């Protein structure tokens, strides 16, 4: 098995969300739904002193995250029907809509906010890494959309050679689910466990 993975170059990502909208178009998602989210993680202060001089310790960066097709997928582990499952051939984690009962356990378990239950469809939905495209030799829509060429999709081996495993705030410690997201951190990046900043765009990542 050759596990597939995302790679994000945090030094290039400008937080534009083109990846999100390419996904929304190809997956034909309703306006309020998205399979990929771009977090703005911001901290520090920008102040003026008594003389009016501005000083800033502000740091901020964007992090584009979808399903990480984890090596230890907690969503599949908690799924009572086996609808959420991991492919043995390429490691992609997908939902078998026919088996899913829409219980929402996967949504509650995933620390990356990836799956959710689409009540209209009656089952759990999430990023499948455009499995149809990928298995036909193409790349996921989000990857091919990135104007800054920050996002890539390849084997875990290739991606891990470019960056470290999802070890950047506001993500959880990667040892929890072994996500297949590899990151070249932005200069501003803070480690996964950091509480130095906060997600500064909550309306955009609901």
């Amino acid at each position, binding site marked *: 098995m050759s596990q597939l993975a995302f790679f994000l170059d*945090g*030094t*290039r*990502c*400008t*937080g*534009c*969300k*083109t990846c*999100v*909208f*390419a996904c*929304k*178009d*190809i*997956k*034909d998602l*309703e*306006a*309020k739904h*998205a399979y990929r989210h771009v977090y*703005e993680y*911001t*901290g*520090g202060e*920008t*102040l*003026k002193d008594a*003389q*009016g*001089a*501005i000083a*800033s*310790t*502000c*740091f*901020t*960066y*964007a992090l584009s995250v979808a399903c990480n097709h984890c090596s230890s997928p907690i969503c599949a582990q908690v799924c009572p029907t086996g609808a959420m499952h991991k492919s043995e051939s390429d490691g992609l984690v997908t939902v078998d809509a026919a088996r899913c009962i829409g219980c929402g356990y996967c949504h509650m378990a995933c620390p990356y906010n990836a799956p959710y239950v689409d009540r*209209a*469809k009656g089952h759990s939905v999430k990023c499948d890494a*455009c499995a149809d*495209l990928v298995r036909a030799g193409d790349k996921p*829509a989000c*990857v*091919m*959309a*990135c*104007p*800054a*060429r*920050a996002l890539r999709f390849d084997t875990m081996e290739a991606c891990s050679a470019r960056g470290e495993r999802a070890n950047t705030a506001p993500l959880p410690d990667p040892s929890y689910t072994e996500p297949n997201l590899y990151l070249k951190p*932005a*200069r*501003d*990046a803070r480690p996964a466990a950091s509480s130095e900043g906060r997600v*500064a765009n*909550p*309306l*955009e990542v609901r």
Partner: protein
Amino acid sequence: MHAHLDRRSFVKGTGALAALAAAGAGGASATALFAAGAPPACAAADSGTERVVWNHCAINCPGRCALKVYVRDDEIVRVDTYAADTDDLDDIQPRACLRGRSYRAWVYHPDRINYPLKRAAGTRRGEGKYERISWDEAIATIAENYRSVIKNYGPEAVYLNYCTGNYGVTARPWSRLLNAIGGGHLSFYGNYSLAQLMWITPYIFGSSVSAGSTLNVAEDAGLVLVFGSSPVETRQGGAVSHHDYVAMRERTKGKIYVIDPRLNDSLLGHSDEWLPINPGTDAALVAGIAYELVNNGWTDEEFLHDYCVGYDEESLPEGAKGQGLSYKDYLLGTGYDKVAKTPEWAAAITGIAAAKIRSLAKEVGTTKPLFVVQGWGSQRRSNGELTGWSICMLPILTGNIGLPGTSNGLREGSYAIALTGLPDGDNSVDAMISVFSMVDAIDRGSSMTEAADGVVGVERLPYDIKFVVNWAGNCITNQNSDINWVHDVMADEDKCQFVLGSDILMTDSLKYSDIILPDLFRLEQTSLIGTGGDGAYMIAGSEPYAPKFERKSAYDAATLIARALGKEQEFTEGRTQEEWLRHLYGLSREKDPSLPGYDTAMQQGVYTRKNPKKKTVVMEAFRSDPAANPLKTPSGKIEIYSEKLAAHIAMHTFAPDDKVTPIPTYVPEWHGVETTTKENPLALSGFHYRGRLHSSWGAVEQLKLLNPQELWINPADAQPRGICQGDTVRVTNQFGAMELLAKVTPRTVPGTVCTPQGAWHDANMAGDRVDKGGCINTLTTHRPSPFAKGNPQHTNICQVTKV
């Protein structure tokens, strides 16, 4: 990968009409249903064959990115772009941005205009109530009003408004139409993007220089200064500034400073490059740095004397000598305001500590090559002409012009494919107004003069504007300034007699039309466009389907108007739009024979071309031999003191607080950080948003949801007002009030709030006029900048309260 029919989501997503169809009522065509609000992929059964056609984005961005349009059953089911899976950053890929990827939601928007409309009887302009009419009635009404305006006033009373919503080789037929049917129209100079800088640049560098080096030139720089710009936000595509800036930043060995009141998105992940500054004070920072350059001997005296005029007494033109009029006199306090521009002086204005200004000056003075680039944010201000000029002084003073790794301080240039456009024909009207003066010219045109209002071509306008064509533009209200004032002028039918509107959606500006014609998106038409950034590209677009409903292309609509006025042959010269495209492309290929043939271009859709020089350094020829390659300034040199501008100042009238000078000086803004009041203690600045291009895409729900309309406010300003992240706040000043959400963030400097411009104005104009859409132009002034008479839309002060 393709969605299938799902009855529940279909019904939910499409509302009553779709529910009717789903219930089997029949009769309604699929087309009608989709136009009522459902993107077709929601309902497209897996039938019919899928076609792929190329087309291009066409809104006011040089991106013009590639759109790979998937069409099934005559409907667009997906919009992809042009991309290859490669690590090579030099591979030119005009990848569409988030807006380009959202076209389907826009094309199928429920507010799409499908039929000709007339303003409902008994309603006023601005109310937005319309009745469907036939094309015949629409054209007859337009022709009748046009004839009466021409008869009573003449073509000087006819105006084609500024619009930026549709570009392509044949996209813009309206000036040609007005010239063909009546001998012309009142035209404008400038634009809303860079009016101030565009006006002053010929005084500095001459008319042949309008931009700087390509961004990749900065790869060779030792120091990169970016003033008032966020390249990744303003030009978001994959083969223009977004990509080019990311590539440059990765490759340059130079240290980068981005000088902006806002930690903009070009700094995401790179906050150490942020040099926060008070808005509107860039010229003061330049003067403080320049003072240090002069005092430490870091100026390039040879360059200043051989290539420039007006730096010091010695290099002033004869007529200006002996009066302390040089730039050096300004800096040292021996001329003009008699104030030395010390770092301490600059620190008090800019908010940048004097020590930081000193260290920055040392870097500027001792690092070569220096690459200085400005965006158009610094100049879109009441002091914008002199600010834009001031920024150019850093490369000028240090001789960093025309050499590898340098630019000239203007915005980044591009290597682009230039295509011949539809000819406008001859306009017999000499008079021009500034682009920002349209509503003034409706309100009081016949009192507008060259001396006071910047009218060009005549001393005084003969008439008020009586007939306006407003096509593919939202600049009557939404993108204009002081919307509340504009509304009062435009709603008064005794002023402007007739407004012809045409667009794809009902916009705030379109509500001031008397007749509305249903337009097509550019991507619904055969089209060609050329553009570029570090690399060049051309996109040939094909129709995904024949026009739906009663929509027509602008070219076809204009043809009908020309026909009604007996000038069809003059307008069309016997050609359809596509025949013009073929004809004009033939002319383009005569100038650029390496372009592919028309049919090949149409088939391949996207054509790219690398810059044979790889990088284009601006003003290279001038630098290598200034005598052989003089600039088109009066002196042939770079003008730091402009005699021509001094003459302009003498012939025009200015308000006392305009403080105009023939050299680049710092002038406090009318409504800025130095002129806040007790009532309006905060500066308010706009910026370009990722989810819109100005107001384009502003009604697309999915973009609005993920790009919320927010006011950026520093915690130091939010806390005393009891404002928390996500609160609804009201922003008020002398011009109006708007409401939007608070983004409490250290990414804006204390004392300055920022909001993305272009949100759709949403106010009850017959009631309290509080704009719930958060459109900044509810609060901007209609007073034009002193020289360009341009839009100073970042020059605002305000108060913010929690609602």
